[in-house]
């Protein structure tokens, strides 16, 4: 098991098999880490919002800084109209961030390294943003695909490209997160394997790489959560403030 760098992504059942109709909804290690992430998020932010002191303690400061960070990110990219979606984007950012960060602990499972999880999130965002766009602008939302100031000759080509790029949003959004997580964790596992195979003599070089990679992966874990949230904000901005 340890030799295969992909075995860390294995999903296995914990406890009995649960079936609803034809669907298998058994509790797995993925479910465990989803619950762990959400419970720690709720715990931290509940503790951080309990007391309202003028001089915040550390956990309150953490909660309030996260709040202002996400709220600033939303208002910067999507404007004031995006305020009703703040809670969703905040939850999204925190969920992805905590899942990524939990994955950095050895022997844990990274929820966001599974394409199905990131794709469900991305697809939900894509459908939600499209629905919001059509509700706000009606069929005028289709003007998104017709950029202004384009010569009429090029217009059919541009429209096709715009539609393809719009439709590929959920794929790019989900694959970006999933691939980053998977690649990083695989690389760390490979270098960890090198440490073992090269032994006490030559293992120091891959070990130092591993240490550096751990730092890099923690950065990537934060960055990918941020990118995921900010791209959601940008898509939301397209739906709320039609610029074309």
């Amino acid at each position, binding site marked *: 098991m340890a030799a295969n*760098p992909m075995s860390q992504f294995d999903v296995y059942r914990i406890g009995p098999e649960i079936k609803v109709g034809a669907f*298998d909804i058994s509790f*797995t290690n993925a479910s465990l880490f*989803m619950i762990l992430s959400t419970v720690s998020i*709720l715990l931290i932010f509940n503790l951080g919002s309990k007391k*309202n002191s003028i001089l915040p303690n550390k956990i309150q400061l953490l909660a309030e800084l996260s709040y202002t960070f996400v709220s600033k990110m939303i208002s910067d990219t999507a404007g004031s109209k995006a305020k009703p979606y703040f809670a969703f984007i905040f939850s999204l950012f925190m969920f992805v961030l905590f899942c990524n960060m939990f994955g950095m602990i050895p022997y844990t499972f990274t929820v966001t390294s599974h394409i199905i999880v990131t794709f469900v999130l991305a697809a939900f965002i894509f459908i939600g943003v499209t629905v919001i766009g059509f509700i706000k602008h009606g069929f005028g939302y289709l003007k998104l695909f017709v950029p202004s100031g384009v010569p009429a000759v090029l217009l059919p080509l541009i429209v096709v490209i715009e539609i393809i790029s719009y439709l590929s949003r959920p794929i790019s959004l989900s694959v970006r997160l999933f691939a980053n997580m998977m690649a990083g964790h695989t690389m760390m596992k490979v270098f960890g394997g090198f440490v073992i195979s090269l032994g006490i003599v030559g293992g120091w070089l891959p070990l130092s790489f591993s240490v550096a990679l751990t730092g890099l992966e923690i950065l990537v874990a934060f960055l990918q959560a941020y990118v995921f949230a900010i791209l959601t904000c940008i898509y939301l901005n397209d739906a709320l403030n039609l610029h074309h």
Partner: protein
Amino acid sequence: MVKKIYFQSIFFSLFFIKEAFAAESGGMPQLNPEFWISQIFWLILTFGIMYLVLSKLILPKISNNLESRKSQILENIEAAEKQREDSDAKLKEYDEIISKSKLEANSIFNQAREKALKDIGAKREVLDKQIDNEIAEAEKEINALRKNAPDKINKIAIDTSSELLQKLIGAEVNNSSISAIVDDLSKRNGDKYYGN
């Protein structure tokens, strides 16, 4: 040197490709659909619950906390500003009172000085008059004395000379002839004796 690095990089890339193939042989667990439904179900469940709790309970509280802190800080700043303005006004008032009382003190001092000067003037006038009067009286007396002086001197001279003559000659001399001589002398030499 460059060649060596180049070949080394190719060697290592081949090594990594081999490693990747080894992983591929086991398959990517992500593409195994066995637990996809389970993952979707648990994702929706956990994320949904988290979203609901965050949006309904926790985030409003945090936003409330931030708002209340902001408003309290603003209130405090406002209160501080107001107090500063109050103290400025008080200071101004104080300055005004000081300058006003200074003016008042000045005017009182001036009045007192004027009054004193006036009193002194009046008293001096009275005293001057008195002194003038006394001087005038004294001069009058002196004048009167001076006026009477020649007669008395003449009389003394007559008496003295008549007595001298009596003792010298032993005979009575007519007073009137003596007085004629004295008068004559005093008329001639009066200026020399009295300085008039």
